[in-house]
C-alpha cells in the first residue's frame, strides 16, 4: 500500500458512554491501556505501519488530554510539512456545531477530505484494540473490486455500545448481503469493527447525500441502506487479536487477556508507538514478589503483585498485596494495603492498610486523582 494513496481518519470520541468514569475527563482515544499505551495508539500505529502518512483525528469535546498525548504526532513520525497528523475539533464553536454524529463530523470536515490528495479513505474508531496491517485490507479491497470493505470479527455480540453492525450473510467471495444492527443475541456473530476502506469520493458522496437528507445514522443510512446498491465486502480479522471494548467489564477482561503470551504476541506483532515519558526502569525491592503481571517502566515495587496490569510510575509499598487489578499511571499504594479487582485511574493514591476488593465480574473503578 503506497501510503500516499490512503487517507486515515480516526474517530477519537466514539462510544465514550461505554467507559463511564474512564472517559469523564478524556476522549475514548486517550483512555490508558495495557501498562503504557492509550487506545488511540493502536489505530495510529496500525495506519502508520501500513504506510499511511496523513491522518485526521476527529474529536469533539474533552480533547485536551488527546492533544497532549498525540501532540505534534512525533511518536508516530507524523510530524511533517506535507501530510502528517491533523487534529480535527469542531473549529467553529456554536450551539449546533459540536459533531452530533458520525455523518455530522464527516460533513463538518468535508474541506479536510476534499483537500487531501489521497484516493482512498480508511476510517477507524478507538474502541477496538488490534494490531493489523491495513495493507492486507487494502489489497483485498482492490482484488475484490468492492466499493467498501469493512473489517469484522467473529465473536460475542458487543452489548453495551450502540450501532454495532452484524454481517448476517456473507457470500463466498466476501460480499455482505444481509446485515442487522444491534442484534440482541448471545450467540457468536460476525460483527463490524467499524474499520473500513473506500474511495474518498465515495465517502464524500455518501456523506453529502446523507447530510442533505438530514440523516443521522452512519451505519443505518450509509451502510445498511446501501447494502444492495454498493458492493460492500467483509474482511475477517478473527485470526488477529481483536479486543472490542464496550464496557468497563470488557476493558478489564481484554486488559487481563494480555497476560496470555499468545495474545501479547499478536497484539504487539508490529510496533505500537506511543508518547514516551523517559522513565527509569522499574525497580523491584528486596521483599517484592511479582507474578503473572505486565509492568511498565518507572515503577517501584516493594509489595506483592499478582495478575495485574501496572502502568508507568506506580509505587507499591512493603507488605501490600495487589491482585487482579489495573493500576494506571503514577498510582501510589502505601504499605500493608490489600487491593483486589480494582481499576485505579491516573494519580490515584491509596493509603497504608487500606483494603479494597471488587470481583472479577465487578471491578471497582477509582476515578483519576481519587484519594482512598
Amino acid at each position, binding site marked *: 500500500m503506497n501510503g500516499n494513496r490512503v487517507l486515515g481518519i480516526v474517530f477519537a470520541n466514539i462510544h465514550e458512554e461505554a467507559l463511564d468514569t474512564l472517559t469523564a475527563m478524556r476522549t475514548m482515544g486517550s483512555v490508558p491501556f*495495557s*501498562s*503504557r499505551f492509550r487506545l488511540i495508539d493502536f489505530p495510529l500505529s496500525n495506519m502508520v505501519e501500513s504506510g499511511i502518512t496523513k491522518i485526521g483525528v476527529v474529536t469533539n469535546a474533552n480533547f485536551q488530554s488527546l492533544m497532549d498525548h498525540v501532540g505534534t504526532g*512525533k511518536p508516530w513520525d507524523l510530524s511533517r510539512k506535507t501530510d502528517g497528523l491533523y487534529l480535527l475539533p469542531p473549529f467553529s464553536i456554536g450551539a449546533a456545531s459540536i459533531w452530533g454524529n458520525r455523518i455530522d463530523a464527516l460533513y463538518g470536515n468535508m474541506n479536510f477530505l476534499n483537500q487531501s490528495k489521497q484516493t482512498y479513505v480508511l476510517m477507524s474508531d478507538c474502541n477496538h484494540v488490534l494490531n493489523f496491517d491495513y495493507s492486507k485490507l487494502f489489497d483485498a479491497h482492490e482484488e475484490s473490486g468492492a466499493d467498501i470493505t469493512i473489517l469484522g470479527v467473529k465473536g460475542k455480540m458487543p452489548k453495551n455500545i450502540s450501532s454495532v453492525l452484524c454481517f448476517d450473510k456473507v457470500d463466498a467471495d466476501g460480499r455482505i448481503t444481509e446485515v442487522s444492527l444491534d442484534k440482541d443475541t448471545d450467540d457468536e456473530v460476525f460483527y463490524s469493527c467499524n474499520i473500513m476502506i473506500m474511495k474518498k469520493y465515495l465517502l464524500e458522496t455518501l456523506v453529502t447525500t446523507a447530510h442533505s437528507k438530514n440523516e443521522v445514522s452512519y451505519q443505518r443510512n450509509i451502510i445498511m441502506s446501501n447494502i444492495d446498491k454498493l458492493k460492500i465486502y467483509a474482511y475477517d480479522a478473527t485470526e488477529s487479536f481483536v479486543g472490542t471494548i464496550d464496557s468497563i467489564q470488557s476493558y478489564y477482561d481484554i486488559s487481563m487477556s494480555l*497476560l496470555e*503470551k499468545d495474545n*501479547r504476541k499478536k*497484539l*504487539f506483532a508490529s*510496533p*505500537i*508507538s*506511543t508518547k*514516551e515519558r*523517559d*522513565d*527509569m*526502569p*522499574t*525497580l*523491584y*525491592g*528486596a*521483599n*517484592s*514478589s*511479582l*507474578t*503473572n*503481571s*505486565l*509492568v*511498565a*517502566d*518507572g515503577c*517501584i515495587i516493594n509489595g506483592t503483585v499478582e495478575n495485574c*496490569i*501496572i502502568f508507568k510510575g506506580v509505587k507499591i509499598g512493603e507488605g501490600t498485596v495487589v491482585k487482579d487489578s489495573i493500576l494506571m499511571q503514577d498510582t501510589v499504594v502505601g504499605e500493608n494495603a490489600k487491593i483486589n479487582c480494582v481499576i485505579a485511574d491516573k494519580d490515584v493514591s491509596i493509603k497504608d492498610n487500606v483494603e479494597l476488593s471488587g470481583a472479577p465480574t465487578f471491578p471497582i473503578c477509582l476515578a483519576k486523582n481519587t484519594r482512598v
Partner: protein
Amino acid sequence: MARKNNVVAMLLAGGQGSRLGVLTKNIAKPAVPYGGNYRIIDFPLSNCVNSGIYTVGVLTQYQPLELNDYLGNGQPWDLDRQNGGIHVLSPYEAIGGAEWYKGTANAIYQNINFIQKYDPEYVVILSGDHIYKMNYAKMIDFHKKNDAACTIAVLEVPWEEASRFGILATDDDDKIYEFAEKPAEPKSNKASMGVYVFSWDKLKQYLIQDENTEGSANDFGKNIIPTMLDAGERMFAFPFKGYWKDVGTIDSLWEANLDIINPNVDLDLSDKSWRVYSRNPMAPPHYIGKNAKVENSSISEGCEIEGNVDYSVISSNVTIEEGAEVLYSVVMPGATIKKGAKVYYAIIAEDAVIEENAKIGEIPEKLENPENWGIPVIGSGATITKGKYVEPGVMVKSGEEV
C-alpha cells in the same frame, strides 16, 4: 541577559574504549548500553538539555554507525532543532588533504568553524564515558562570576586514590595553581572530572597555539590546561558533589550498573525535574511470569521474565526462561537466557543468546581460586551453546558461537 546559543557543548565521543574489550568491538563507547534503559551518552546529553544547552557537537571517528543511528535527529533529547540541536562531527577532507582527529584538543581544533558559527561566549567540553547528573548552567555561572578563562569540574576522591586521577591544587577561592596528571604525591584530592568550561575566545586562542606547537599531543589534559596555567590564565575548580563514575573498564561498568539498584547509592533516576532521556525501544510492557522470582533488580520494558533474577539490571526486550537464574549481572537489550541457564556476576551484551543449561561466570564464594575472579563478558550477538561453561573473566567475541 543573553540570547540563545551563548553556550555550545562539545562531547568527545571518539575514544575506542579498548578497555571495554568485546563491548566496544563494533560500537563507540558512548553507545554502550547502561542501566537498563540508557546508553552512556544519555547522561551528558541529558545534562546538556536539562542545563538549557541546546547546541551540542558530538565528535566521533570510531565506529560511529550505531552511535549516529542512536542519536538520529536528536528527538529523544529534544535536540531536533532548527537552530542548534545535535550535530555529529566526523573528520572530513579539505583542500590540502584529510586528517583524522589526533587528540582531544585537535578534535575541537578541527571543528573551530562549527563552534564559531554559533559565536558562543562559552564552550563546554564533555566526555562520553561518565555516569553523572550535573547542572552545567551552575558551573557556567561560577565561571562567569570568577571571570575565568577555564573552569574544571572537580570531585573530591579518597586521598589514597588521588594518584589515579588528574589532580588540581587550588587556593581557598578555588583558583587552580597546579595541575598534575596522576601525581605520585598528590597535593590535593580534587580530581578533574573531564568537564571543562572555557571562554570561547580563550579556548580558540590556545587551540590554535597548540596546533602550531611542534610535538604537542594535542590533548586537553596534557597540553591545553598546563599551557594555560603556565600563561597565568584565571582557572578555577568547580566543586561537584554527587554520583560520578567513570565507566571505562568492565569492572567499573558492571559496578555502575548495579549502582542503579543499590538504595544506598546517590543516583536517583526517578527525579522528574532532571530526567535522563534516552531513545525508547517502543516495546510492550515487561511481563513477569507465574513462576518467576524477581528481587533487588531493575527490569525494562519488553522483557519476558519466567526465571529468577536477583541483584541484576535487565535491559529491554530480554527473555529469561523458566529455571534460568541471573545473579549480580548486567543483561543488555535483546539478550536471551534460556531454560536452566545460570548467569553469575556477568555482562551479557545485546542480543546474545545463552542456551539451555549453559553457565556464565561463578559466584565468587564458590571459586576455588579467588585469583581467577573476573566479570565474564558475552559479546553482542554471541551464542553460548547448551550446557557450556564460560569461566569468570573470559570474554566471548561479538557474534561468536562457543
